[in-house]
């Protein structure tokens, strides 16, 4: 078959048709990709959502075991954005008596390992702690040290599964798969992101065997100082049958916290 030959020409146009149909099909099924922001863009918006330059929050942490027995802890969390995309936070437990004074200082560094320090009043000493063991639970709650970090967007590959309603909220549903070499306890997780708020209102965590083992749910949100804030949240560990409930009792944003709140010295002075 030579060029100019009728059969050749016919064959070429048929192939062009099939190719065009195939591409059209691909385009149609990926229609969402054209009409909606990409999953990564959504996660970027969540990450860069305005949460104030600094804040001070008082919360209640309720630990509930499988028998429904509860232990209630109260804590203050100071957070501040520093130059170089570093976020520092200091968590101090204030009650009950057996944990009062225990403090946790986290320097969430950009592009390098975080720095974490723990203060136990009984030791009267600030201890640098390992940040690679992210799977360990934070003060016996269902939050692991990994959950305490502000997760950078590029640590995971994000896939937009679609849009959905969650408790009257229009949400994006995104699956995030940790990239290889990422130090994580998770196989993947699914997040429900309220469209106009850029807030994650629900996350299902799956372990490396693809088993669903934890669920995070925002139970209430409130606009405080122009910032939408989760005021009530629940984290359930389905394997342990254990729950951690966080209730925000009060928060103040942009209060110009001194840098000295985020030092080992302040951590160790209680």
């Amino acid at each position, binding site marked *: 078959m030579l060029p100019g030959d009728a059969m050749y020409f016919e064959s070429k*146009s048929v192939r*062009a*048709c099939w*190719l*065009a149909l195939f591409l059209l099909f691909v*385009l149609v099924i990926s229609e969402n*990709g054209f*009409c*909606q*922001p*990409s999953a990564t863009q959504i996660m970027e*918006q969540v990450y860069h959502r*305005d949460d104030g*330059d600094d804040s001070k*929050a*008082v919360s209640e942490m309720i*630990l509930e075991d499988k028998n429904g027995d509860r*232990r209630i802890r109260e*804590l*203050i969390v100071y957070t501040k954005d520093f130059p170089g995309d570093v976020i520092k936070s200091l968590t101090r437990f*204030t*009650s009950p*008596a*057996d944990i009062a004074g225990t403090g946790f200082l986290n320097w969430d560094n950009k592009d390098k390992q975080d*720095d974490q320090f723990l203060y136990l009043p*009984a030791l*009267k*000493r600030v*201890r*640098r*702690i*390992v*940040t*690679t063991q992210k799977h*360990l*639970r934070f003060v*016996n709650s269902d939050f692991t040290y990994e959950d305490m970090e502000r997760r950078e967007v590029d640590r995971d590959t994000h896939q937009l599964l679609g849009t959905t309603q969650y*408790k*009257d*909220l229009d949400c994006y549903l995104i699956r995030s798969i940790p990239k290889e070499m990422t130090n994580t306890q998770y196989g993947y997780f699914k997040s429900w992101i309220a*469209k*106009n708020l850029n807030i994650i209102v629900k996350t299902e965590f799956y372990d490396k065997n693809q088993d669903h083992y934890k669920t995070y749910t925002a*139970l*209430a*949100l*409130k*606009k405080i100082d*122009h910032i*939408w804030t989760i*005021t*009530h949240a629940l984290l359930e560990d389905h394997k342990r049958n254990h729950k951690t409930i966080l*209730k925000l*009792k*009060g928060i*103040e944003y942009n209060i110009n916290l001194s840098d*000295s*709140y985020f030092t*080992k010295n*302040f951590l160790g*002075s209680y």
Partner: protein
Amino acid sequence: MIRKRDAGCCLAFLLFYFCFPQECLAINVVEKIEFKETEQAFLTIVCSEKVSDYTSFYLKDPSRFVVDVKDARLSERIGRRISLNHLDMISIRTGDHKEYARVVLDLKGATKPDLMVHQEENVICVAETPCNEAHNGILLLGDSNEIILEDREGPIPEEKGTHGESERKVKLEGDLEVKYSGDISEDDQLENLHDARSLFTSTIKYLLSPQNFIKAGIRVRYIEEWDNSRYSFTKVTLGEAYLNLVQGDFYASCGNQIVRWGSTDEISPIDVINPEDLTELFINRRAERKLPAPMVRLGWLNEIMNIEVIYLPVFLDSDVEYFDSDWSLFPHFPDRIAEVSPAAIGSVMKEIRLEEKKVGRKLENGEGGVRLTKSLSNLDIGFSFFYGWEDIPQPTPRTESGKSIMQILFGPQQAGQIFSKLTAPLTSNDLILDLEYNRFSLYGLDFATTWRDLAIRGELAYFKERHFLRTRDLSIVSEEVFQGVIGVDYNISDDWYVNCLYSYERIFSDEDLIGTERSNENLIGSVIWDIKKDQFTFGLYSFYSLTDKSFYLNPSFVWDMGDHLRWEIGANLIWSGCGAALFPYKDNDNIYVELNFCF
């Protein structure tokens, strides 16, 4: 064939259409953007078609409010930047993106007007609150600014700001420990088989601000040993009582307080500032033994390093027993001598007395030090210098014959032989040994870092002078000492924690010294197993001297009965050969039960 070719052209056109740049894909066009400062809905975005979706959010650095109109592109007639003459807003900028058209409202400084976005058909309005118009997503919930997604826990306590429980100005805290120990066996006629100890500490803290506070506390220690030779001890002292102030990069604290330098745990040569409660010697952990002391601490946190200076105007010695307790430095010494020696010697030795030569309360008798710390990547390092008094004094005889008494103190088995050499009867002065405190200076380097899943801490300390008793003439000698410690922490899992520590000490002396070798090596290990989180914990602490092979083991089981009450059951087990540091305590093996109540 022609039809097929046409079909191919159509499909090629469709393909071209779909592959064309995004602007061509969006069928909606933002045709007009209006800004009317005086109206509530001051910004209006008018599109050619009904808006399928949009998102709005604040961004910072610089502060701005963004509206993304989905599936839309900007009309060519719309400018890319409109400057505004507004109190809070600088300009409106626009831009086409792959899947949306973006309208950005640049805000002045950290200004954040309370903006809401409404959409009606092809119009999006940005308005200042309040507003009750129909709109998307959360805004459908009206102007309550609160969304209850699920009411599982009942109403959240309403509190303004952060002034909750945690912000109480005055806090009263306290801790009561009551412990009973019973010896496992009666190995000695002088040892006490029962031991009751209690410690009560309470502090009132007044918060001036989160960083500035005043503390005032009390500490009450009560000990009772009974059975063969009764011993009791009560001490009421000021607990932690100090003022803590922070101002910018500077901090200061003044009063009775505990300051710990260095980074390692049980053996920490740099942690020498505060005296210790040694009434049970090594049985309690180092942090628990620390006693508050009056001092002034000043610190400066700066970019290069942190500098801290401390000054202790008054020297406070450690709480230590010399004779009467099972945990004394010389347990039941006079009685023991009387037991093993002829009656005449025994009755004389019962008169032996130790008298402390108190350090005078003068300016030059103060203690002080300076510490520089720095964090480099994941390495924290500290350099310390401290000039102070040794916590344990050295005995010195008042008379020449008193030297013989000292010889008996450190070698009771030779009592008869020493007595036989005495040429004159002993006077009361001969039987008094003075306890002298000696100065030391310390140069220390400590670090803490992490490597993989291990937390590593270490200390190197050089003591320019530390004081010992020379074996040959029982005189006090000052020697240089080097001490190095390295410790590792590892969390095997959420429920298992392991800590190991190795220490090496070298005394630069050519002499034989009493009570110590010239080089000493020790190992400390501890394991904690959370059998049930927040309820049952098993702990195992051990000390092993590689030098004299003595061994101490402390298994314990803790039952946490809630937020205030805790029970501990455990054992103190000691193995030691003759001449080893733990030898005087080898018969003190016991089982204990401890109740801890905190509020």
